[in-house]
């Protein structure tokens, strides 16, 4: 589905990614793990066109998408969340989620200004979809709240809803449970499994090993910008390289 081929990215001479390759399988949850500064966010940025790789290629559904502007990547059906939440503080929860459907809302300025019945009906359908997404993440009650007064956990779920509402072909989640408590983490784990059951393809960037082990089919380990291991959660768990380079250091593996 998505192939990352020998991607390199340097920041001021320091490699953040060097020669990273891996593939995502359709309908599977792939986890990308590694210590802080390993290059995980940089990888997501390089896939989504927020950043451009210095070398290497990213193929999506057989098409080369390397260096494509972010908005074109998004229109191919790749959506993402951000590690440090990028919600639109001025908008309500429902409007934030509707922003996930911006492109489906049409591009014509004239249509938007005149709002003919065609546009009106389309907007109504989009709103229903956004409501359904809110419902799925338990946010219905908060629909009309401005997001900037929401609790952190709720905001994280709003971003999740915004990423999912467009029914994308690929969803990239950058640390979806960072900063959440135990209960909230369990809810997100359930959501991820539900998405997988529905046939979504996900790339999960995470620190929480417990979550990664529970929900992913395949794990890729980055360290210092290099891909040091890959395999099923069990294989990775037993891999001595991983234990030494990452898990041993942080002691995160139970």
């Amino acid at each position, binding site marked *: 589905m998505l192939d990352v081929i020998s991607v390199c990215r340097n920041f001021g001479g320091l490699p953040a990614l060097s020669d990273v390759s891996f593939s995502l399988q359709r309908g599977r949850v792939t986890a990308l793990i590694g210590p802080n500064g390993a290059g995980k966010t940089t990888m997501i940025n390089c896939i989504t066109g927020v950043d451009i790789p210095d070398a290497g290629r990213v193929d999506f559904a057989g098409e080369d998408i390397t260096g494509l502007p972010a*908005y074109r990547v998004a229109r191919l059906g790749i959506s993402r969340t951000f590690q440090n939440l990028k919600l639109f503080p001025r908008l309500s929860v429902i409007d934030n989620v509707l922003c996930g459907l911006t492109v489906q809302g049409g591009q014509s300025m004239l249509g938007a200004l005149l709002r003919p019945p065609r546009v009106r009906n389309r907007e109504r359908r989009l709103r229903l979809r956004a409501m359904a997404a809110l419902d799925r993440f338990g946010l219905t009650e908060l629909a009309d709240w401005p997001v900037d007064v929401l609790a952190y956990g709720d905001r994280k779920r709003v971003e999740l809803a915004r990423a999912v509402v467009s029914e994308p072909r690929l969803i990239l989640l950058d640390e979806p449970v960072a900063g959440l408590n135990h209960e909230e983490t369990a809810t997100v784990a359930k959501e991820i499994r539900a998405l997988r059951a529905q046939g979504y393809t996900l790339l999960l960037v995470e620190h929480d090993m417990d979550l990664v082990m529970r929900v992913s089919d395949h794990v890729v380990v980055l360290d210092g910008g290099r891909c040091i291991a890959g395999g099923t959660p069990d294989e990775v768990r037993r891999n001595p390289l991983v234990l030494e380079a990452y898990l041993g250091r942080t002691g995160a593996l139970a």
Partner: protein
Amino acid sequence: MNIRDRILYFLDLHRNGLTVLALSLLLAVYPLAYGNPYILGLTNLIGIYTIVVLGLNLFIGYAGQISLGHAAFFALGAYGSAVLTVKWGVWPWPAIALVALATAMVALLVGIPALRLHGHYLAMATLGFNIVIYTVLVQWDELTGGPSGFAGIPALSFGAWQFDSDLKLHYLVWTAALICLMLGLNLVRSGVGRGLAALAGDEVAARSLGVDTRRAKVKVFVLSVVLASLAGSLYAHTFGFVSPDTFGIFASVDFVTMVVVGGLGSVWGSLFGAALLTWLPEFIDVFESYKDIIHGLILVLVLLFLPKGLVTGLIDLSRVRLARWRQRRA
């Protein structure tokens, strides 16, 4: 749902339509009660400013950009209509359309390079453009009449029926203003509008949601400039006289103040901001003599205490209060 909830729900669902309806009624009957030409002249000016401020609000408040040069586009509309109708004998209505088209072209030429800039740089670029246009208006006196202005601009008409009194102009101006407000309300509830709001919130996030941010900025800039141009043409035909003073950089700053006072990103706030800042100086003498200082002060105070602008800020405050209250009750 009980009756009260149902009524509240109905009001909430149709709030924009009902506001338009109420406002239209009010505007339709109020000249019958206050036929005073002086007051009508003032409210006509408010109607015209509302159109400029609406366009600017879409650009600043909704899309999160900044322009300190909108008085220049307002000027291009006003002087364009004046020159085309008086010097070249073009009929007023087609002249308005031609001028709007030409101003849109200018907006593209200015906007495509300028909109790559952010924040202060964009502010300076638009301000610079305003200074250039103002200087041209003052210097090129064969065409513009120079500092003393351009008089004798014909009234708009339908056949032999002319918009030549304050009362008739009242209906013309406010019909135009209401139509523009409704278009604005439509825009902000559409996919394009959401793209603009996303752009204002966070450009990277907007792009990651499929918004072509560069294009979106240019489009909303052109839209806001076209509104300024239309308002300028309307101004010229309403007052029959234009002079450079109306279009200097302080006018641009005034428009921004109106946006901020009315509320960033609020369509109705545009009307409120334009009305408040046009009325006040007429009633308070101190305000008139120290207008620029007081406008500056208002701008700073509102931005300090209600960064989203007066109306939007207050509405947001009450929305949060309401939501908290509902939650406590539930």
